[in-house]
């Protein structure tokens, strides 16, 4: 029966525990065991990120194409699915130019800083039931703190290129990320207040009887919307892509980058996109928690049979799709409008919303 269940529900936690057992029997030394496990986790994470970026790149092109009544990539591989691989190969073989007047040390460091900061934030994410790299007790706070570092890589890239467009792009990104962090923090805090913990696994567990977006009524819905808007701005995607602003700044902070160094910015953009969507899915949509309706046990049971990883990725890609949908619909904001939107609309509303949520938490007005 247990075996049968596993056939239906492919479980990452089962895989992880068995791997752990196997390694434990094979390697006696605890230090070596730790190193091996870290290596396995790191390599599989890297492989996952690369595959994820390939997929997201393909998805973005196809979403864009279908929204723009065209076909998108359809030559390389089946339905053009290998187009992004071809592009990566092209970028790999391109010359990694370093401009003459640039600060060469910082110029070459910046892409790595950007990628590393985005990769760090992936550690506490729960990909499936009991499958988490690092269940740190300050999960959410950790992610926000790491994402506050992201701006530094962009500032470094923009400044060290010694290109005026890059510099303007970097300045814009600084103003943008620093201010939108506030809204993100406040919208996350509303869920932290309701669930009473910063630990991601606790937050997911608190949604066992219903996702926060359903349990939390309108205030949580508002903070969800604010989170989506602010995180779109935080990861510099259209309509908030003022740092790149192709038509204004010819590429913004990465104007001077080419080849692999440019690919790293692209990589970090997609990782960031995945992370904010995963966080939104975890915090508001219950992470890997399946969808349950009240006392419909039959329906709930059927939902339980869908693997938890599928739930997580389904929700995450739903939010990724929404953010892509934004990008391929809206024109770009101007810098002062961007700041006005944050300081005059999102921040006051999310502050008031936090008050409402606190009241909800104090009086137990949720489910």
């Amino acid at each position: 029966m247990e075996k049968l269940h596993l056939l239906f529900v492919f479980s990452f936690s089962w895989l992880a525990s068995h791997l752990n057992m196997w390694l434990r029997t094979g390697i006696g030394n605890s230090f070596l065991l730790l190193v091996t496990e870290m290596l396995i986790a790191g390599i599989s994470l890297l492989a996952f990120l690369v595959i994820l970026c390939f997929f997201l790149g393909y998805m973005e092109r196809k979403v864009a194409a279908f929204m723009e009544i065209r076909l998108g990539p359809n030559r390389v591989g089946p339905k053009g699915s290998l187009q992004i691989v071809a592009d990566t190969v092209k970028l790999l073989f391109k010359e990694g130019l370093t401009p003459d007047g640039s600060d060469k040390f910082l110029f070459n460091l910046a892409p790595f800083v950007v990628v590393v900061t985005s990769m760090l934030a992936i550690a506490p994410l729960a990909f499936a039931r009991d499958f988490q790299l690092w269940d740190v007790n300050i999960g959410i706070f950790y992610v926000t703190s790491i994402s506050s570092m992201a701006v530094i890589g962009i500032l470094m890239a923009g400044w060290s290129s010694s290109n005026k467009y890059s510099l303007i792009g970097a300045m814009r990104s600084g103003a943008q990320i620093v201010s939108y962090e506030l809204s993100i923090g406040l919208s996350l805090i509303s869920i932290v207040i309701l669930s009473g913990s910063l630990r991601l696994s606790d937050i997911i567990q608190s949604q066992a009887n219903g996702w926060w977006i359903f349990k939390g009524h309108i205030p949580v819905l508002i903070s969800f919307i604010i989170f989506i808007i602010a995180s779109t701005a935080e990861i510099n995607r259209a309509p908030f892509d003022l740092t790149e602003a192709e038509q204004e700044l010819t590429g913004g902070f990465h104007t001077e980058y080419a080849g692999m160094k440019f690919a790293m910015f692209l990589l970090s953009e997609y990782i960031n996109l995945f992370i904010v969507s995963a966080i939104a899915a975890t915090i508001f949509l219950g992470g890997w928690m399946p969808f349950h309706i009240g006392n419909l046990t039959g329906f709930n049971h059927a939902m339980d049979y869908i693997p938890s990883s599928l739930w997580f990725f389904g929700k995450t890609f739903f939010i990724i799709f929404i953010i892509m949908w934004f990008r391929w619909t809206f024109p770009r904001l101007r810098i002062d409008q961007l700041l006005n939107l944050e300081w005059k609309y999102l921040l006051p509303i999310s502050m008031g919303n936090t008050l409402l949520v606190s009241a909800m938490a104090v009086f137990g007005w949720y489910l």
Partner: protein
Amino acid sequence: MQMTRKPSDITTDAKSGEVLHHEGEFIINMGPQHPATHGVLHLKIWLEGETIKKIEPHLGYIHRGIEKMCERLSYRQFIFSTSRMDYLSAHINNQACALAVEKALGLEVPPRAKAIRIILAELTRIASHELWWACSGLDLGGVTPFFYAFREREAINDIMEETCGARLTQNFIVPGGVMSDLHHNFQKRVKRVLTQIKDNLHEYDEILTGNIIFQNRLKEVGYLSREDAISYGCTGPAARGSGLSCDIRKLYPYDGYEKLDFDEIIFNEGDCWARYRVRMAEILQSVHIIEQLIDSIPDGEFQAKTKNVIKLPKGQFYQRVETARGELGVFIVSDGAATPYRCKFRSPNFSNLSAIPQMAQGAKIGDLVAIMATVDLVIPDIDR
């Protein structure tokens, strides 16, 4: 904290002593290769932060000497070269040249040719405005509208290809009429395109016109007063957005525009949003004009009889038309020979460009892109 500027903060030119820039100012060269200049225009921009203090347009990157070239081409030949000026209203440029020659010769154009010319000119105007709409969406960061507009524009270009043989630089007009008669599919396809445009125009409004981000990018940006529009010589939608009545089709009708019912679109706000609405309304006006003509194209000749070698009488001849971007004037000085003695084009974009520094005073870089988008510059027309 009032402080006087130190002399060391000002950089001056070593030779002329001219003040080049002040401390804290930031000079950016926008173009000649820049995604938003739509061609090889170079704008030298003095910035303070992101605010524009001064703009200096630098021209000449695509100067081909079309005016000089025209002086060695015969009156039949020189029409084609004007297609390469404002390539988005190539047909209307050709029409201007032909009209100038006809005016000089006192040639009467058959009514069928006139009707064909007007229909094609209005189709060109619609196609040009579609492209402008697509590009202004693109300039402001929305990529998707671009493809929606190109869907209709392609249909118009297909009609052009079928009747004129070319999609963009048609060269369908000859002195005294048009080159050949309409294709037998023409009326059917034009009607289909008109319904397609009218059916799809609401999508344009949904994705861009009604969009709050787009509106805020255009409203109260790039103000040009009516007085400034006059003194800079602005014409076309750029000036009509400032409340200046300057539609040549109304003021100096040609080729039978006087018999048609259409409105001159004027908005008084003078900002980018007004210029945007002028063009959007003009699409509908052009559709209206074509609808009046398409079922009642007169029968008869499509070309008046002209001599093999056209020689203009001695004198000076000027003809203006309304292109998609404003007033195009063709000035021909003839010494009685088979080629013009002097040929001069008054192009709308050159004058409209000169108003951009005025419009962009105190604007941001993002606003400059919006201004460039709504003025709708075609760079080869500036340089000629």
